[in-house]
């Protein structure tokens, strides 16, 4: 277990800056998620920490020691790749054993650790198979097994669930959370999926265009987004963002209101419009209302709300939960 610190780290590819000077402190045992849209630099940042890319400037400290120039293998980190990167010509056993073999551990140790990892990950029955004979979820477990046998000081996950189908993704997400609880290891997890970020993270780092938008625990980001970008990115369905007169009324360039902070009425309220879509999820209903001059606004209602396309509804925001942003997209104090 180790702490990881980035000091003024930046990265350019051929004159194009993909990571602008960035500071980040990751504590021991913490699970930090880098989240952002594709191309925001989150994977590059992970690869800089892994040592697969060289930083253009700045410093990387692992447990307080400068690791900026260390080759990847010497940093004591393990990585789970998006494609799993299993060695296709090796059995599951040999895949998991590979890092130990490279570290020249003795045969008994290797055997013991592989068996232990297989037990934890439920892979005992597949040890002699080749990767191509496994399902997506099993491959994912092998990749994780290969990462844990090294007993790294930190785990790096690069979009590990993006190649799995939806149901499996939810399962693996829980498994990874469980694994992190068991091992208590420092973990950096990269994803573009804000749900994954919200459910897994101790702290989330939201990245956009190579810059950090906000760092904080999931609920803090949800409750107090520091920027318009974070407000729009975190939370599902998305926060309603309104400009123009509706916003200037509150002295802001843009205001944001989450669907659950709107109350519905069939007779009165701040805004009204016709229902364009009602998504009945069972526990909740998300109602999309076309408000003249403002666009479509989503609101959460009770699951048993009986509302149909074309009906007229009134919406009223809970003003205590209103988010206000200035013209640069920065949050204004409440």
């Amino acid at each position, binding site marked *: 277990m180790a702490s990881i610190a980035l000091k003024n780290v930046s990265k350019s590819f051929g004159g194009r800056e993909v990571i602008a000077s960035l500071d980040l402190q990751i504590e021991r045992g913490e699970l930090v998620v880098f989240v952002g849209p594709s191309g925001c630099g989150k994977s590059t940042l992970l690869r800089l920490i*892994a040592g697969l890319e060289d930083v253009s400037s700045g410093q990387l400290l692992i447990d307080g020691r400068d690791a900026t120039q260390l080759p990847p293998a010497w940093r004591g980190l393990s990585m789970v790749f998006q494609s799993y*990167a299993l060695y296709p010509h090796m059995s599951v056993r040999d895949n998991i054993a590979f890092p130990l073999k490279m570290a020249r551990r003795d045969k008994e140790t290797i055997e013991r650790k592989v068996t232990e990892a297989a037990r934890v990950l439920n892979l005992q029955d597949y040890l002699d198979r080749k990767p191509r004979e496994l399902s997506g979820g099993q491959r994912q477990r092998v990749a994780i097994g290969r990462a844990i046998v090294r007993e790294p000081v930190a785990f790096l996950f690069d979009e590990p669930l993006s190649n799995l189908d939806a149901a499996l993704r939810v399962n693996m997400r829980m498994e990874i959370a469980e694994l992190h609880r068991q091992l208590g290891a420092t973990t950096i997890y990269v994803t573009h999926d804000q749900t994954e970020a919200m459910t897994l993270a101790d702290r989330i780092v939201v990245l956009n265009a190579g810059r950090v938008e906000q760092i904080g625990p999931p609920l803090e980001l949800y409750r107090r987004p520091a920027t318009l970008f974070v407000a729009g990115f975190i939370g599902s369905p998305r926060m309603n963002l309104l400009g123009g007169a509706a916003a200037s009324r509150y002295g802001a360039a843009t205001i944001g209101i989450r669907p659950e902070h709107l109350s519905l009425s069939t007779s009165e309220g701040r805004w009204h419009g016709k229902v364009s879509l009602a998504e009945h999820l069972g526990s909740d209903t998300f109602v999309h209302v076309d408000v003249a001059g403002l666009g479509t606004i989503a609101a959460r209602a009770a699951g048993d709300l009986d509302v149909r396309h074309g009906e007229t509804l009134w919406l009223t925001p809970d003003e205590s939960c209103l988010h206000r942003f200035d013209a640069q997209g920065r949050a204004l104090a409440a």
Partner: protein
Amino acid sequence: MARASDNRHKLLVTSVAWVVALAIFFPILWTVLTSFKTEGAAVAIPPQFLFFDWTTQNYAEVWARTDYLRHFTNSVVISVGSSLLGLFIAIPAAWSLAFSPTRRTRGVLMWMLSTKMLPAVGVLVPIYLLFKSAGLLDTRTGLVIVLMLSNLPIMVWMLFTYFKEIPRDILEAARMDGATPGRELLYILAPMALPGIASTLLLNVILAWNESFWTLNLTAASTGSLTAFIASFSAPEGLFYAKLSAASTLAIAPIVVLGWLSQKQLVRGLTFGAVK
């Protein structure tokens, strides 16, 4: 009912396909059959298909009276030699193109391909004269060099398309797992690249074995490969069908078998990965 008509359909397809396939294969079959006939039976009218006196006399005579073995050795040395030498130069080149791509990678690959399109006759005169003055004319070394050069673009391209399919993630995973460059090569790269290297070698041996422009123009009797050896049968005095067939069978058998083994890779190799 649907099953019965499916089966009948399959039977029809099977018989049509076999008739066509045998017709296409017939010249080879006929050559092999003729090689086991006496010279008299070989030219008999009507032709004798299976019911003739089988003899291995022709093989014995080809073996005893001609320099078959020497030409065979030449063919092996030239085709295997030029392919191995080519691999030696093409592997690092393809490796660097596949794993360290730059802005010029595409241009380099296209240019290499363009050299393969240079017609051999365009450079026949200078190569002939250069070889003459360098004493390489009619030597195996000379042919190894020429065939290596003429197939080098194909080798680089073939290897490139195979190497490109090795995911970069896997190389990075190996680095993360603590493999030194040497061990990365030994445990990860070699096992994954070997099938591609093997099929490149195989296809180029086949191409070099059958190459017949440079082998006919740059060699005379002594270092001639089997292509040249068979060409010498075109002289009227050499015209004995059974012996010609025996010599031909000996010349094509090894490479047809190799070809059967590599037919799948052949498509990729000869289309530069455009068809897989």
